[in-house]
């Protein structure tokens, strides 16, 4: 599913070509953010819950090794096989190995952002395995040969007409049909057949409990359970940061997760797996893939607290107006932009700049990750290490020179205002990025400083 990657700014420009579409995308996500607000305000203890969740996760970061070992021991006692993978390649090989061992070449899969991060589908398909994504949104983007554009709402970038056309082509629905009820029913029938005929099911993990060796998977559709309970082998994949110490901590996290994600008080299904059913095999793959490196970055380790609710995306003015695919990373939006540079600084150097640093992401984050501060800090790391294009670097240097010299700053302000008045076409043209989608303002007659000096008693 790899496409030629453009940087975030160029991809956003393409996304913004159709203004009514961008407005629709923006408003749809804002509506989800609004639902989150309504839901969270019903709990007087909301802020305390966030604080509690954040400190539990901080404990997790500082006891990660012990918790993982405990989880592994408990899971094994429960009859679950535990595997460890240092990186994406190892993870993918483990999955392939398990399928080969059982002579299985077709698998159903529920949502797992980790497998997106590992590009597992591509790998398995190349190795002759058919993988069917069973979350409706994920199935839609899979049929379109696209990655999800949002971690919770994978097909949020599509209109129902797009989906109607897609289902007409692949599922034989009527041409021109756009009724969500009708289209969903078609997908239900199509996927039920897959659930009933596939012997392997892969799921993600929302929370893994060190104390019990169990893990929780949350869905609204019921697809994780349909897959897992009908399959001979259930493979659950988790980034190691999904661990929480105790069962009772689930109370805190399940209260926060769905309210932050969609405004629901809880997802329809919160499935607690602990032991395989009789005759079934259950496997857990614990994946690092850069996480242990991120754990060592003091400024950025808090990003590992993320519970993947997507609230930071729904609220982000840049995400809402540029779409998930512009981030060219499995996890998009603000959280994706602080996770991605850890994986590859060269490839993802543009992402921490895809933000206005307004701070809304940090304000809605249920585990209080300082997302906007980290975006700002990543910019500094990336510039220092030479991952930022020369043009941007020179711009930043020039700005720093102007801003650090008050006289020069005053003079250049005056010059700028004079130029904008005398020869406006110098700034009112497509070469000036600020001119895109907006008119340049009337230049004021004097600067605030001049006004202040004149009016001060």
């Amino acid at each position, binding site marked *: 599913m790899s496409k030629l990657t453009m940087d975030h700014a160029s991809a956003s420009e393409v996304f913004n070509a159709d203004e009514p579409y961008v407005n629709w995308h923006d408003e*749809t996500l804002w509506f989800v953010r609004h639902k989150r607000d309504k839901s969270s305000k019903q709990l007087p203890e909301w802020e305390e819950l966030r604080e509690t969740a954040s400190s539990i996760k901080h404990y997790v970061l*500082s006891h990660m090794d012990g918790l993982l070992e405990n989880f592994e021991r408990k899971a094994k006692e429960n009859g679950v096989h535990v595997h460890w993978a240092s990186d994406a390649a190892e993870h993918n090989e483990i999955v392939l190995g398990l399928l080969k061992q059982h002579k299985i070449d077709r698998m159903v899969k529920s949502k797992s952002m980790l497998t997106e991060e590992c590009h597992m589908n591509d790998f398995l398909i190349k190795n002759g395995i058919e993988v069917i994504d069973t979350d*409706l949104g994920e199935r839609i983007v899979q049929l379109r040969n696209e990655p999800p554009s949002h971690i919770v709402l994978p097909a949020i970038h599509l209109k129902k007409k797009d989906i109607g056309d897609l289902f007409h082509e692949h599922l034989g629905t009527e041409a021109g049909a756009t009724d969500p009820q009708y289209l969903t029913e078609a997908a239900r029938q199509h996927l039920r057949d897959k659930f009933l005929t596939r012997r392997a099911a892969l799921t993600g993990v929302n929370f893994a409990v060190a104390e019990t060796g169990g893990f929780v998977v949350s869905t609204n559709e019921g697809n994780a359970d349909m897959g897992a309970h009908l399959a001979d082998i259930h493979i659950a994949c988790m980034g190691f940061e999904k661990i929480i110490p105790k069962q*009772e901590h689930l109370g805190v996290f399940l209260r926060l997760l769905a309210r932050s994600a969609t405004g629901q008080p*809880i997802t329809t299904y919160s499935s607690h797996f602990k032991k395989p059913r009789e005759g079934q095999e259950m496997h857990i793959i614990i994946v690092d893939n850069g996480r*242990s490196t991120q754990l060592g970055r003091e400024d950025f380790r808090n990003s590992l607290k993320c519970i993947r609710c997507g609230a930071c995306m729904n609220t982000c003015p840049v995400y809402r107006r540029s779409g998930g695919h512009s981030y060219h990373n499995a996890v998009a939006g603000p959280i994706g932009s602080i996770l991605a540079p850890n994986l590859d600084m060269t490839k993802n150097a543009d992402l921490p700049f895809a933000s206005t640093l307004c701070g809304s992401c940090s304000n809605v984050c249920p585990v209080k990750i300082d997302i906007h501060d980290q975006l700002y800090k990543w910019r500094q790391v990336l510039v220092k290490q030479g991952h930022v294009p020369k043009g941007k670097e020179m711009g930043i240097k020039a700005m720093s020179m102007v801003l650090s010299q008050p006289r020069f700053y005053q003079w250049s302000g005056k010059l700028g205002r004079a130029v904008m008045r005398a020869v406006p076409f110098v700034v009112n043209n497509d070469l000036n990025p600020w001119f895109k989608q907006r008119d340049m303002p009337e230049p004021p007659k004097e600067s605030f400083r001049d006004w202040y000096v004149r009016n001060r008693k």
Partner: protein
Amino acid sequence: MSAREKILKQIRLNKPAETLLPEKIDFDSNFIDTETKFTESLAAVYTEVIVVSNPDDLRQKVKEMYAGVVNRATTIPELSDWADFSLNISDPHDLETIELAILRAEFGVAENGAIWISDNHLPHRALPFITQNLAFVIPRKSIVGNMHDAYKILADTTGWGCFISGPSKTADIEQSLVIGAHGARSLVVFLLEESEK
């Protein structure tokens, strides 16, 4: 070095200074009426809550509500003569034709309408998902306030268990809510006043 050793070694090297777990991790919801809140929470997810006074009452209600439905399965002993689909099978794929399952579940949570069901009382984990329509029976007195209260009951779980709150649903097509994604198309919850054991 194995992947396991490598990962754990790297974590030990990189983890931050140890912090403590927060002492307070639960909060009271103080609903004026727990059952009313539970009923409201479920109404919001298109689920009806019906109080029945005893197993006879339940049986009568069920017969009225689901007259004409075939492929009925249940785990409630008092409804066994009503059911026409035996759960005494070994392959869960055989459950595929079930139209309605009425299942004993354990308790409900008022703040979100979630109902806990586990393999304590369930012969097949797939059952609540594969059935076209679903109903739960829980003791009327078993409703707790919020998820903190719930995990006081669930200090540990059996092999598998699930909180279910409403019928299966999706909004993946332009955020339009559609009931009946992969799992049950409808859910009804019976609150049983007294249970005969």
